[in-house]
């Protein structure tokens, strides 16, 4: 896979730095003073039950919504003030399917390439390489409509990597997929962290997707209730495993006690 990072990621800058971010939909508070950061080349799981604020956070990071309270920086670039610089470094897989079903796999990817100013020749090479990376060789000219849920997700991941981001955001990327597809996608992403040095923020409510070596950020009803390495969060929440810790944190039993220092 030809996926060389540009290296222009900022000296010592966090891949993602979320500082004091709050967001409301009218009177409804969706995020409340959330702060955390993730380092380049790490896999961080953003855990939270439905309605915890994960998708809102993703919408703020991707500048679909403006950050009105707090700040979000991607490799040092403020998403609100330097959105172009920030968005060039981030690849996003949204929870909702975002492929154009009427177009072929190639046309979908080519469209994304043009949205990042990548010329046709360059795009063709990158698409061919990424199609292989996500095990979809030979499907370039199939209509997106003809793909299974898992295959669509793979293409969306390939699309998110097309402009060679240094940070990858995936919002519940495995929801609705069978166990085999879930495992395959997760393995692909973890490999990207190892081999390509991409920072990953993986939002999920499926605790079995978290490994012992991962970092986690736990949201509960818009509040950040824990963050740190899995072992530290488990210890601080007084649980026996990350599953128990997540269960406790989600019920509000451990709350901010699980806060871990770096």
């Amino acid at each position, binding site marked *: 896979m030809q996926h060389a990072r540009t290296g222009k990621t*900022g000296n010592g800058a966090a891949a993602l*730095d979320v500082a004091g971010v709050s967001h409301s939909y009218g009177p409804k508070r969706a995020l409340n003073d959330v702060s955390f950061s993730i380092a380049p080349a790490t896999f961080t799981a953003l855990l939270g039950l439905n309605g915890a604020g*994960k998708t809102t956070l993703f919408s703020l990071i991707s500048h*679909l919504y403006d950050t009105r309270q707090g700040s979000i920086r991607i490799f*040092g670039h403020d998403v609100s003030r330097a959105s172009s610089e920030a968005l060039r470094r981030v690849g996003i897989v*949204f*929870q909702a399917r975002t492929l154009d079903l009427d177009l072929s796999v190639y046309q979908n990817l080519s469209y994304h390439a043009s949205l990042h100013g990548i010329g046709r020749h360059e795009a063709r090479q990158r698409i061919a390489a990424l199609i292989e990376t996500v095990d979809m060789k030979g499907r370039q000219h199939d209509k997106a409509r003809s793909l299974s849920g898992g295959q669509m997700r793979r293409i969306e991941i390939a699309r998110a990597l097309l402009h060679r981001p240094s940070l990858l955001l995936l919002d519940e990327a495995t929801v609705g997929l069978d166990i085999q597809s879930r495992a395959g996608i997760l393995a692909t992403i973890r490999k990207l962290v190892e081999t390509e040095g991409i920072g990953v923020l993986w939002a999920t409510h499926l605790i079995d997707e978290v490994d012992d070596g991962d970092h986690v*950020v736990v949201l509960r009803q818009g509040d950040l209730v824990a963050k740190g390495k899995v072992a530290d969060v488990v210890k601080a929440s007084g649980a026996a495993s990350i599953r128990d810790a997540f269960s406790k944190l989600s019920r509000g039993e451990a709350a901010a006690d699980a806060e871990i220092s770096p």
Partner: protein
Amino acid sequence: MSTSAMPEKVGAITPVKSDAFGLRHYLICLKGIVLREGLRFLHQRERFISSLVRPLVWLFIFAAGFRQVLGVSIIPPYKTYVLYEVYITPGLCGMILLFSGMQSSLSMVYDREMGNMRILLVSPFPRWYLLVSKMLAGVSVSIAQVYAFLIVAWFWGVKAPPLGYLFVLPALFLSGMMLCALGMLLSSMIKQLENFAGIMNFVIFPGYFASPALYPLWRIQEASPLLYKLCLANPFTYAVELIRFAFYGQVAWVALGVVAGCTLLFLGGAIIAYDPSRGLITRKQGTGGNG
């Protein structure tokens, strides 16, 4: 809370800038958006056929039936009496642009519901540029439909002066931009696809019928002075007149000014509406996720 999930303390942040996008990148982006709109249009054959059939029904059936009923006196830009089919052809070109502009609004609401819109909005190009590109893409498709209609009309015997087909292009472009910008602005106000029926009832039909597309305004003035004033306040009136005069190599300056002004107004509104820091989208839309 302000601790870190990072394994080690991050040092002082010194963001490094990438090479700025140049003209070439902007053109690649525009080309991609136009190509995608064209491909979607070609893949949706029913949309193409219906966009062609609608004005042709008006031309073949409605105009033939009303030719004897609705007499058109000699009014500029015409220098002689013209057949009713000839009179309504610019209005039918306007109708294609109107429906197409609203169709692009519908497609934006659909894209937003389906999630495709996010792919556009998270592009690193400026939001205003993406929206203008999207508009240009919609206008390109609209103009292709108008020329397809004009070819069929030509074979039906409804012909403009040969150079008129060239002169009308800028008028179609500007009118199309205005109607696409209006569609884009409306799309920011529509929360769900189901609400689009309201656009049909409150925008397309009143806009079309309260205009000189089907009958000269002097006839409306005779029938109802109030309705005449409404027609004068309707931007679509000026789009039709701009197109009508352009067919004969003339510029309707008032129409040109109104259409250009409305284009800027609607486009400005759409850009504000889709701006994440000020727009309606942020306030009205949910995140589309569970989390």
